[in-house]
């Protein structure tokens, strides 16, 4: 069984870039989140599909310049757990 993560519906979020952070207004809860990189990039590449950390890592590599040698899967997993605690992604398995 593999753990997967799925971002909430796109229309639930209003994105707004600040100079060093990204603001996300979550419509269903009315909560404003302020995220630092790479959390916004993770959400962006997830779209609305259920994905594993490995799949998200490969999507990130395809779209962004990723530092070689970085322990991406673990960094992504840690951010996904934080995003899950915030209610911005949900956990599932396949």
């Amino acid at each position, binding site marked *: 069984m593999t753990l997967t993560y799925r971002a909430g519906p796109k229309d639930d979020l*209003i994105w707004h870039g600040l*100079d060093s952070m990204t*603001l996300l207004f979550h419509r269903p809860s009315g909560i404003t989140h*302020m995220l630092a990189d790479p959390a916004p990039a993770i959400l962006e590449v997830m779209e609305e599909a259920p994905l594993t950390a490995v799949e998200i890592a490969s999507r990130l590599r395809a779209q962004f310049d990723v530092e070689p040698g970085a322990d991406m899967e673990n960094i992504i997993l840690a951010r996904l757990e934080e995003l899950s605690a915030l209610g911005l992604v949900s956990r599932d398995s396949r």
Partner: protein
Amino acid sequence: MTAMHQIHLKIGPAAFRIASAWRQPLDQLAALYRDYPAPVDDGVDFTVRLEPEKPWRRHLRPSVHIGGDFWLPDAAPLPLAQGLLAAEMGMNLQMALGWRRHLLLHASSVEKDGKALVMTGLSGSGKSTLSAMLAERGWRFMGDEFALLSLETGEIFPFPRLISLKNQAIAAMQNLAPESRFGPEMKATPKGDIRHLVPPTEAVARMDEPARPALLLFPRFGHEPVLRDMGQAEIFVRLTQASTNYVALGEAGFRALTRFVDEVPTRAMDYQSVEQAEEMIEGLWSQLP
């Protein structure tokens, strides 16, 4: 039930009914707000009630309890001699907790050339005193407590209630404004010595006129004079803290505040005297587009 006296006041877009068990605070309010337009109809946004803390205390060492549509359970009663302060605190409280038509920023604001300077910061930052001072030096006073940010247009609407001067600011303003514009001096209130100042006539006459925000300052009194750039993330967070209704307004509040942060140049300003602050402000103002 105690018989209540009452008065209606309109300050900027907000209409208040102040009901009081005593005449004295209302007479003082009526005198200080004498040049404000009367509300056009009986519709009021908020009611503030000044009542005896306990019925039998009305005459015996009377103590004023602040009530109204919105209230805080820990609002301490004030002695009757501070009834005017109680009324002003009551009006602020209704705005802070109940206003929904604008994003409310705990900030002072003044206008010149059709553009607004907004100043926000913690209590003691000097934002109120600076707005009062600038209002005597060619700026239009818009408010010393709340700046009302339009959810639709992004403009700042005035809320020019009485200016609440504290401690040293009282003597400083007595040098600039005639005695007839001052309310009674209230010593040793929970907020220190307080004296209210009626805003300049122009501020009242133009209290329905908004202005586009052109500069946001975070003043800090008592430090070596310096202007500092601030990151947008810091500005945004501090403005959410300075707003009493950001959360309540939901998406409309988010859109108004992000627009404000995008559009309005912002600086932190440390200063040690009003003269220094004025010089820095005029310098920044002259560089605006």
